[in-house]
């Protein structure tokens, strides 16, 4: 058998004639179109959701990112202030801050700036039962103004970002400070320099508490810390903070008054 084109045409046409059900075709096409639209909508919804989540994440990262203010803050380092200068115990630099226990990333974090000069707090007179830290603290920005005698009180402050366990320790030391004057005798200062700190508690990204100030001379003894709403006595700076200050060059690391020579310390221990 050697089929000719005629045979082939005839063979191909053989058996034709089955009608196609148009209704069935249309129904199938409609179902396909509905499925396709549903798929497109679900895909679009997924894309929108992913974009929204991405936007939120980007926003969160952005709020934790370096906005340029205080970008020179590299750990404990001196940096120009990014917040309002000379404010009196108010919140400073509404810039974002890292969360507590978050790894310290100097390149992506922006923190509240330091006032140009130590804020002048107006604590209530006498004993104070007010709260130094009325809200849970995520971190602290500690501004160290060094020795007023040496700098005239207007030197560029050293700014430290205290996070994690160090922030917890600092908050705990502030909360456990006495609410009334201890009335103890302190040893003669081992140094002539007096150091002034402004501690700005960060409760949330962009939200800070009024500054808490403290001025002391090493060895620290019966240090008074105050804010606009409360005053505490006998504050003992956490050793970690002193070490951080020392590393920053603000002052040498030194233990607080608990290491005072007994013979010269006529008072009782603070705590």
């Amino acid at each position, binding site marked *: 058998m050697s089929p000719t084109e005629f045979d082939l045409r005839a*063979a191909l046409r053989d058996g034709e004639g089955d009608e196609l059900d148009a209704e069935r*075709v*249309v129904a199938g096409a409609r179902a396909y179109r509905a499925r396709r639209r549903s798929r497109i909508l679900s895909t679009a919804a997924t894309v929108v959701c992913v974009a929204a989540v991405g936007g939120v994440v980007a926003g969160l990262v952005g709020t934790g990112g370096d906005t340029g203010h205080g970008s020179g803050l590299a750990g404990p380092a001196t940096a120009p202030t990014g917040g309002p200068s000379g404010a009196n115990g108010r919140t400073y630099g509404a810039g974002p801050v890292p969360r507590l226990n978050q790894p310290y990333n100097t390149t992506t974090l922006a923190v509240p700036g330091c006032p140009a000069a130590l804020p002048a707090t107006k604590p209530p007179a006498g004993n104070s039962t007010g709260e130094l830290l009325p809200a849970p603290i995520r971190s602290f920005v500690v501004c160290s103004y060094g020795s007023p005698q040496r700098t005239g009180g207007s030197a560029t402050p050293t700014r430290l970002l205290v996070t994690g366990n160090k922030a917890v320790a600092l908050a705990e030391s502030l909360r456990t400070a006495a609410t009334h004057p201890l009335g103890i005798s302190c040893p003669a200062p081992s140094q002539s320099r007096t150091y002034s700190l402004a501690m700005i508690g960060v409760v949330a990204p962009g939200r800070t508490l009024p500054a808490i100030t403290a001025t002391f001379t090493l060895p620290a003894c019966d240090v008074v810390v105050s804010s606009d709403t409360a005053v505490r006595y006998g504050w003992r700076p956490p050793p970690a903070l002193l070490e951080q200050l020392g590393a920053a060059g603000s002052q040498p690391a030194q233990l607080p008054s608990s290491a005072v020579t007994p013979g010269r310390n006529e008072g009782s221990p603070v705590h």
Partner: protein
Amino acid sequence: MRDEAGFRAFVEQNGATLLHAARLLTGDHHRGEDLVQTALTKVYLKWGRIEAPLPYARKALVTAHIDQSRRKWWGERPTETLPEQPTASADVAASDMRDELRRMLSGLSARERAVVVLRYYCDLSEQDTADTLGIPVGTVKSSCARALARLRVEAASTSGGAR
């Protein structure tokens, strides 16, 4: 879809031809129905935006057929030896030559089969066949010649085996 009545009329007018072409392409009754449904669905979605529905439907048909034949899970491969080779006891002389020819189509590749169906069933010119398949006219000619040669060889071997 605005002109669904027009689409229905198109299906009623050309559906039988397209369905038969799809069965020839697939070599299977039911897969042919699936194939024509796929092609007509594409026409349905484009209805109102295509100027020549029938060529579009033909193109959709052969494109879908070739695409399906490329998918591994179809497992469709042209073979030198047809799986349904009749035995000597199944008297070839008793079988219809037309059925035999259609059966031999399954031994062709998907593109060769499409060329044969378009050229000899749909009666398209070589140029129209080339346009429908999106291949050069020369490829249509060579594919057609190769397909016919293979059909002749198959037919000769079948009739030889039957003797």
